[in-house]
């Protein structure tokens, strides 16, 4: 199994994402934003960081990178894509996921271990969890407040598109405590918290994050 990790100018967590892929038992493949080459990967991860310095809007310029056109095309035909933090922002800007991420409600950068509830355990990236399961992974963002117009939020909730929700405190004012959402087909998932930072006892608050990276292996086998 080959899982690509895209590096944009300003990506920070691409190495950690690749490490999580390796710990999950797959082969990480480094991808470069300016190429038009997905290198025959089976799935793609968009890592955290500050692509293009968050200029214009977080993720806005990265969403128009050459390789993202290939990602959008492949995602629409079912390739699993996971966006973490800045990667989530890129997926929303690229139109693969609904809603938008904006400046935290309290206007401060927030960095802490965060409890989450898995709302959907039937996406390509969350198969290895139970619906309703509580996990703890780091969250670290300045523009992580999930927003959409109230009518759009109702539709997102009604369609079961909320994949992960903040519990025991909302770190950034995200509407309806939404931490992550999924595409209608469950193949594209984006979330602000960082599962790739919670894959080893030595460095993370838990190993709860590993499930995202093991889940997709089974999703690709069954696909």
């Amino acid at each position, binding site marked *: 199994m080959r899982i690509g990790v895209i590096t944009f100018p300003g990506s920070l967590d691409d190495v950690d994402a690749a490490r999580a892929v390796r710990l999950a038992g797959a082969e990480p493949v480094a991808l470069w934003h300016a190429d038009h080459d997905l290198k025959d990967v089976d799935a793609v991860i968009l890592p955290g960081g500050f692509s293009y310095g968050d200029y*214009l*809007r977080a993720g806005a310029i990265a969403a128009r990178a050459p390789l993202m056109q290939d990602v959008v095309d492949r995602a629409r035909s079912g390739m699993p894509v996971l966006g973490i933090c800045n990667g989530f922002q890129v997926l929303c800007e690229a139109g693969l996921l609904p809603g*938008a991420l*904006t400046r935290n*409600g309290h*206007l401060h950068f927030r960095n802490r271990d965060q409890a989450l509830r898995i709302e959907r355990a039937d996406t390509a990236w969350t198969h290895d969890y139970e619906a309703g399961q509580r996990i703890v992974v780091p969250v670290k963002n300045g523009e992580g407040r999930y927003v959409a*117009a*109230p009518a759009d939020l109702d539709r997102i909730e009604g369609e079961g598109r909320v994949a992960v929700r903040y519990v025991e405190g909302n770190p950034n*004012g995200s509407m309806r405590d939404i931490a992550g959402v999924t595409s209608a087909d469950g193949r594209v998932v984006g979330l602000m918290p960082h599962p790739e930072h919670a894959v080893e006892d030595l460095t993370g608050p838990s190993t709860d994050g590993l499930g995202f990276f093991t889940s997709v292996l089974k999703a690709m086998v069954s696909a």
Partner: protein
Amino acid sequence: MWPRRGRVGDGTGQRGSVGSLTRAARSGVRHPGTLDRVPRVVVDVVLKPEISDPQGQAVLGALGRLGHDGVRSVRQGKHFVLEVEGTPDRAELQQIAETLLANPVIEDVELHLPTD
């Protein structure tokens, strides 16, 4: 501290020259001392009314602390000035505004062409 940006081509980098560049840009002149008029298009990007604006609220709070109690609301947005070749194409500019300058999920755009 981030390094200061914006020491543009004229090599002066003085505060005064920034002001004169701004005045030159306002009058549609590409560089000081030339008469090369370039059409300017202004795109204002504002948050949709139903999207809350914590940055605007922080500005409003600061105004209150400064004694400006008469300001009831502040909404913060972005202001783009585009210099374009030839006659501005409204349809193309609208597309530029809606596909890159603004995120239509949360923002509205206002286009101001020289002919407006």
